[in-house]
């Protein structure tokens, strides 16, 4: 593995966007840093921003570690990222409309039919349906890593219900509260329009039958869900109701919520529930989280669901390989952001290479998420690698492999002071009548020295992400 790029330095000189931060860092005495860190933690806990890790037990009120050292992009760096992200979000949505329609990209032989039609995330129940404004994925979270001054790669796409945006907003809030001077010295693009853009995006995809100011709700699996804080945070910012499945019911052609004044019609549902649970009559009959009859209302144009059921087929890790192809096919453009080279273990040539090079590669489950079920070859023991080898051989189609990227690092406050830690970036692209992107995103940081796993469920932290104004 090559030396990774430290975003603050270039050939031992401090890069311009970090110049002021570097001075700030030098000027900060250790005791102030410790005091500020404690302050931030107390604030987070008081507000209640905590993160319960699925199935891990332990403290249900665990905090996601917050690192006070911001991560910075220049105006130009961001401009390119923004174009690339929006381009990708458009292509992904075009792909979704296509594969639930005539499947031109498959007919054209640009993507194998089985990858789409036999994909567990492909919902044939919505085949033939074009959602309002032709949008399937309304919030596209695109995970990006950096490996050099100008090298960015897309690690994966999240077309269903990418989480973490509350951390983006809260990290900024926290920084502005604790270090207002930094915001005077540096001209930083604001991110606080996000909730308004989200609300507008959701309202813009109200169904055809909605002839009034649309009522938007957020549908949560409930307060035991690890992302519940985020659900309630967004509902609060947008001024919309946060509902559970039991709060909604179908009557006639529409969906209603149960209120203290009787039924109130709902037009747009921003759901944070998986497809399988959302409509028990259509998908899982045992689901207690969903709303019986919802799919009939949805497909007959009585309500919009964001993201649209079936959107998951576009962010499958096997389909990921073909996103640059989608950009070319649907938009007639060259992709601005590149994919990480990926081997499909389902292909025999690729499988052979992967098994040969296993200690050097990162291997992921096709449908996995949250950093679970993955192997980071160079960071694993021989036994771990052999165990994983057996899993791959048993079900090759379930795995993809990528080279271990030298993820960039940014300065991070650690026990000893400041040290580089690896980071990634998740911007949240909003797709409705328009495509919107706030400048910035969620920077996740692997707090363990040398670690490349940034997932919060695996001990990752978050930091504020700055985009400097021109």
């Amino acid at each position, binding site marked *: 593995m090559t030396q990774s790029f430290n975003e603050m330095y270039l050939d031992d000189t401090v890069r311009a966007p970090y110049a002021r931060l570097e001075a700030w860092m030098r000027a900060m005495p250790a005791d102030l840093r410790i005091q500020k860190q404690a302050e931030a933690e107390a604030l987070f806990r*008081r507000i*209640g921003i905590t993160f319960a890790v699925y199935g891990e037990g332990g403290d249900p009120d665990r905090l996601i570690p917050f690192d006070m050292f911001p991560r910075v992009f220049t105006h130009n760096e961001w401009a390119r990222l923004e174009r690339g992200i929006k381009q990708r979000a458009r292509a992904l949505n075009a792909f979704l409309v296509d594969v639930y329609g005539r499947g031109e990209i498959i007919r054209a032989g640009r993507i194998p039919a089985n990858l789409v039609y036999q994909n567990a995330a492909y919902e044939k129940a919505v085949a033939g349906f074009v959602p309002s404004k032709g949008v399937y994925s309304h919030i596209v979270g695109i995970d990006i890593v950096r490996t050099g001054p100008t090298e960015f790669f897309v690690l994966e796409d999240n077309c269903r219900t990418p989480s973490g945006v509350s951390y983006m907003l809260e990290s900024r809030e926290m920084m502005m509260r604790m270090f207002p001077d930094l915001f005077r010295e540096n001209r930083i693009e604001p991110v606080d329009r996000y909730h308004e853009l989200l609300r507008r995006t959701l309202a813009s995809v109200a169904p055809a039958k909605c002839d009034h100011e649309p009522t938007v709700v957020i549908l949560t699996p409930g307060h035991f869900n690890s992302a*519940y804080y985020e659900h*309630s945070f967004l509902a609060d910012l947008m001024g919309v*109701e946060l*509902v559970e499945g039991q*709060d909604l019911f179908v009557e006639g052609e529409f969906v209603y*919520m149960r*209120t*203290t004044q009787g039924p109130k019609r709902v037009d747009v549902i921003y759901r944070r529930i998986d497809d399988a649970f959302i409509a028990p009559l259509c998908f899982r009959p045992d689901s207690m989280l969903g709303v019986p009859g919802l799919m009939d209302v949805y497909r007959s144009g009585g309500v919009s669901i964001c993201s649209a059921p079936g959107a998951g087929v576009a962010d499958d890790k096997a389909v990921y390989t073909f996103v640059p192809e989608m950009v070319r096919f649907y938009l007639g453009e060259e992709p601005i952001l590149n994919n990480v080279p990926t081997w499909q273990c389902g292909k025999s040539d690729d499988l052979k290479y992967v098994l040969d090079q296993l200690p050097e590669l990162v291997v992921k489950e096709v449908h996995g998420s949250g950093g679970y079920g993955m192997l980071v070859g160079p960071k694993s023991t021989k036994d771990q690698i052999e165990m994983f080898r057996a899993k791959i051989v048993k079900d090759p189609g379930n795995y993809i492999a990528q080279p271990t990227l030298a993820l960039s690092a940014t300065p991070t406050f650690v026990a000893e002071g400041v040290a580089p830690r690896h980071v990634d970036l998740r911007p949240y692209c909003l797709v409705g009548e328009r495509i919107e992107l706030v400048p910035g995103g969620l920077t996740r940081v692997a707090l363990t020295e040398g670690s490349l796993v940034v997932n919060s469920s695996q001990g990752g932290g978050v930091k504020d992400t700055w985009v400097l104004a021109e």
Partner: protein
Amino acid sequence: MLSRTADNLFWIARYMERAETSARLLEVGSRISLLPSAQGYRNEWDAILRSTDTQDPFTRKYGEAVQRNIESYMFFDRDNPSSVASCITQARENGRIVRTALTSQVWDALNTAFQDLREIERTPRSKLELSRLTDWTMKQAAMVRGAIDATLLRGDGYNFLNLGYALERGDATARLMDVKYYVLLPRMGVGSGIDNDQWSMMLRALSLHRAFHWAYGGEVTAAKIAHFLILNPHCPRALITCVSAANNHLGRLAKLYGKSGAAQAQAEALQAELDRLSPELIFEEGLHEFLGRFIRQTAGIAGMVHETYLSGDMR
């Protein structure tokens, strides 16, 4: 407002009030147990457990009703849904669910109570005086209530919270009085000296001791106490005060929603009845009988509130 949100708000209030009641019961019990009696010291704990309908589960788990066990049960025990720990945890959880309907001050008060509680639970029991636990509980309840009064929008959510408080408090006062009733009646007639000691103790636990003397003066009699705790609209915990608060908030909801229903009708009827009552009439009916009826009537109003607003089935 979502029916489930209204339900959560209603229960935040009920749980906070219930936590306070459990703490007050603990205090009454411990104070009364310091009073001498013919048999040495009195054991009032059985009566206290009876008042919360939890004697059986307690006996199954702890056996003898001694102070330490009662403290465990009524303060710390998560198996006891009315324990201070259970109630504060539930109140905070209900608050977490409806964060969007609360101000940050109200949430802060609920969350701080919960975080403190976890701290208390980690503290060795030997370092925890009962009075510290009960004081702490009442302080938390006051903080939450204060935050609600000071910061919350006077919308429907505010009315549901206050309905919860009013109905729970009415129920609690009735049950607290009923404890006293149980203890006294079988042994000696209402009105003897020992009796007055115990009533005073109870007033003290309700933080109403001085208020009572200011209001009535002279000898403590059963009739005065019944009047104070049932019929005096100046007493913040009196049944009539609670019913009138419930009426007020139900009325505001009816006005807000442009619709009045069975809950309003029942609460108004109960209020009208209390307005006509006197201590003599209550003792004529039998204090225990009256209190039992009151508890059932408030439960009936709570049931109608649920049916009308909280279940989401109203059309």
